[in-house]
């Protein structure tokens, strides 16, 4: 468990760092695949099997393919490289390191266990998520589906997510139409 966590965490972090420092767009896309895939592994380790599967399907399988298409469609000349100047890179790296230390200090400084016990004392102990016998179904699939339909059998005090689900579906339709409208083929120079 901890060995797997270490492997996935290191792959995710090193992949993210490699995305920042690599110059070629294709390599950036590859390291992004490594980082996002390892993050899906972290989700599996955190008992979020459906979220991990959705991450693999949508992010690694869909969004990354979209980004790679973008890289290929907007490829500039073979010798033209868009690079930042070294001074800007150094300054950005320093600011990034400072930001990272600040976030690390903040995360390490919070007493998460005390916060959890206080939350439980104020809101009452939530009932444990009921498990299902069919192991091929996973533990989170049915509660997640019910939550998206607005029913919360696992914790009755929590809200349902029917309205955000519907808003997300309409949003996806709008995005589909908008992206098709923006990226439609047209002759260059006929006045936008």
């Amino acid at each position, binding site marked *: *468990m*901890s060995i797997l*966590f270490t492997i996935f*965490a290191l792959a*995710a*972090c090193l992949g993210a760092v490699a*995305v920042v420092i690599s110059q070629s767009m294709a390599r*950036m*896309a590859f390291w*992004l695949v490594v980082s996002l895939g390892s*993050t899906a592994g*972290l*989700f599996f*380790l*955190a*008992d*979020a099997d459906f979220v991990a599967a*959705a991450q693999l399907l*949508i*992010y690694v399988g869909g*969004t990354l393919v*979209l*980004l790679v298409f*973008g890289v290929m*469609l*907007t490829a*500039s000349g073979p010798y033209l490289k*868009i*690079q*930042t100047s070294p001074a*800007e890179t150094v300054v*950005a790296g320093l*600011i*990034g390191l400072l*930001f*990272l230390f600040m*976030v*690390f200090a903040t*995360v390490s400084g919070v007493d*998460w266990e005390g*916060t959890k016990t206080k*939350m439980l004392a104020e*809101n009452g102990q*939530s009932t444990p998520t009921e498990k299902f016998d069919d192991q091929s179904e996973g533990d*989170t699939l049915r*509660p*997640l589906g019910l*939550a998206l339909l607005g029913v*919360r059998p696992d914790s009755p005090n*929590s809200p349902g997510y029917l309205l*955000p689900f519907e808003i*997300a579906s309409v*949003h*996806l339709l709008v*995005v589909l139409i*908008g*992206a098709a409208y923006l*990226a439609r083929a047209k002759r*260059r120079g006929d006045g*936008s």
Partner: protein
Amino acid sequence: MQPDLTSYLLVGAVLFVCGVVCMATKRNGIGVLMGVELVLNGANVNFVAFSKYTALGLDGQVFSLFVIVLAAAEAAVALAIALNFYNNHLTIDVDRANKLKG
């Protein structure tokens, strides 16, 4: 050492900071998009970790699902804008996108 909440949060922090630095330093528009994906992914790691280790319960996973869906939608629209920009300017350099400058 079993993984605990703090280690998940540290991984999320590394992803977030790498995404922010990527957004700030890359001059290629698609590179900026990849930075945005990294930032959203770091937020997702935090959501799932809080869903496992605190009293948040299943809501964290629902929120991370919404983040994944919205990230896909954002990538589609931003890519369409980038393609449009490339058709008009024959480059994807974001420093050249200064038409709206007063």
